[in-house]
């Protein structure tokens, strides 16, 4: 390891080799054993670590069990309040569910068969005079309109 890399690591991670990237620790320790300059950079990093530790000691958040329980209770209460706000459902899924697909298909098939049978059986009756007149009128007028264009 070169001095520059050693200094960079000390400047980044501090003086505790336990915080350094594991892959570089052995090389760093080897350099430290033989280099006064490396020891100098480590001493500088140690000084800053001491200050940082001092601040951490003054600001260390000691979390008690009671605090944990209180916060979990508060989070649960907020969740209970928020739960009615469920995720929006796409409109296509929000339509009323009418039953399985096979029932709908079966119903349509039954209606189709019934229609064919009714048509063949003549139950619907022959066209009346009035309905024939209307269809003649519509057909002849639509043809003449199309012809005259």
């Amino acid at each position, binding site marked *: 390891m070169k001095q520059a890399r050693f200094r960079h690591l000390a400047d*980044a991670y501090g003086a505790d080799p336990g915080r350094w990237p594991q892959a570089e620790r052995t090389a760093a320790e080897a350099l430290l054993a033989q280099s006064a300059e490396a020891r100098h950079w480590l001493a500088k*990093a140690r000084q800053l670590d001491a200050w940082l530790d*001092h*601040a951490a000691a003054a*600001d260390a*958040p000691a979390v008690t069990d009671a*605090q*944990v329980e209180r916060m*979990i209770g508060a989070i649960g209460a*907020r969740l209970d309040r928020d739960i009615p706000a469920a995720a929006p459902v796409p409109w296509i899924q929000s339509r009323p569910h009418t039953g399985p697909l096979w029932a709908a298909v079966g119903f349509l098939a039954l209606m189709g068969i019934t229609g064919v049978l009714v048509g063949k059986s003549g139950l619907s009756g022959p066209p009346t005079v009035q309905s024939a007149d209307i269809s003649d009128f519509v057909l002849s007028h639509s043809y003449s309109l199309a012809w005259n264009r």
Partner: protein
Amino acid sequence: LVSILRDEGRSERDDGEDLEDGDDEALMAEVAAGNRAAFDVLTRRHLRKSLSLACRIVHGRHDAEEVVQDAFLQVWRHANHWRGDRARFTTWLHRIVVNRSLDYWRRRRFAPLEDAADILTPLPDAQAIVEERQLASRVDAAISALPDRQRVALSLCYYEELSAAEAAGVLKMSVSAMESLLVRARCTLREKLQPLLGPVDAGEDRS
């Protein structure tokens, strides 16, 4: 009936024990399915660490509690957005806590600081206590003045003891970029705190 109730109680207890034993990723799958018990286990498991991290960034216990509550509510609400194959749960959670903390920090940056506790009684150790508090408050002030990303990098790597790779995952950057952030943060702090060493030691810098 008694045996049925007993069996049900045992079953619930077993489920709870299973959840306690489950890893974060398995619990998140349960949370995504709406399992509140899994969410409680996950919250209990990571609350202290999250609170500690938030405290370091927002510099206030009350604000940190709000930040952490919001963060865990986000975990619940967005559990189905989390993809276990992309990041570990803790990375995702830390990212949420950091982002929420920075939001709070930016909103409250200009709010008046709470007064430091007064030391009224000149006890024998009072001088040492005063000096210690003054030093701590100078270091805290120097850390607070760092740019957000440098402060977060320092909090994650130094105080929360995440590896550079883990912290880089939280801030979505490379490890080398994380190292550069740390170097800049520590250099800035050293410059600001150098006067604490006095004029003789301050002249030792070889850079």
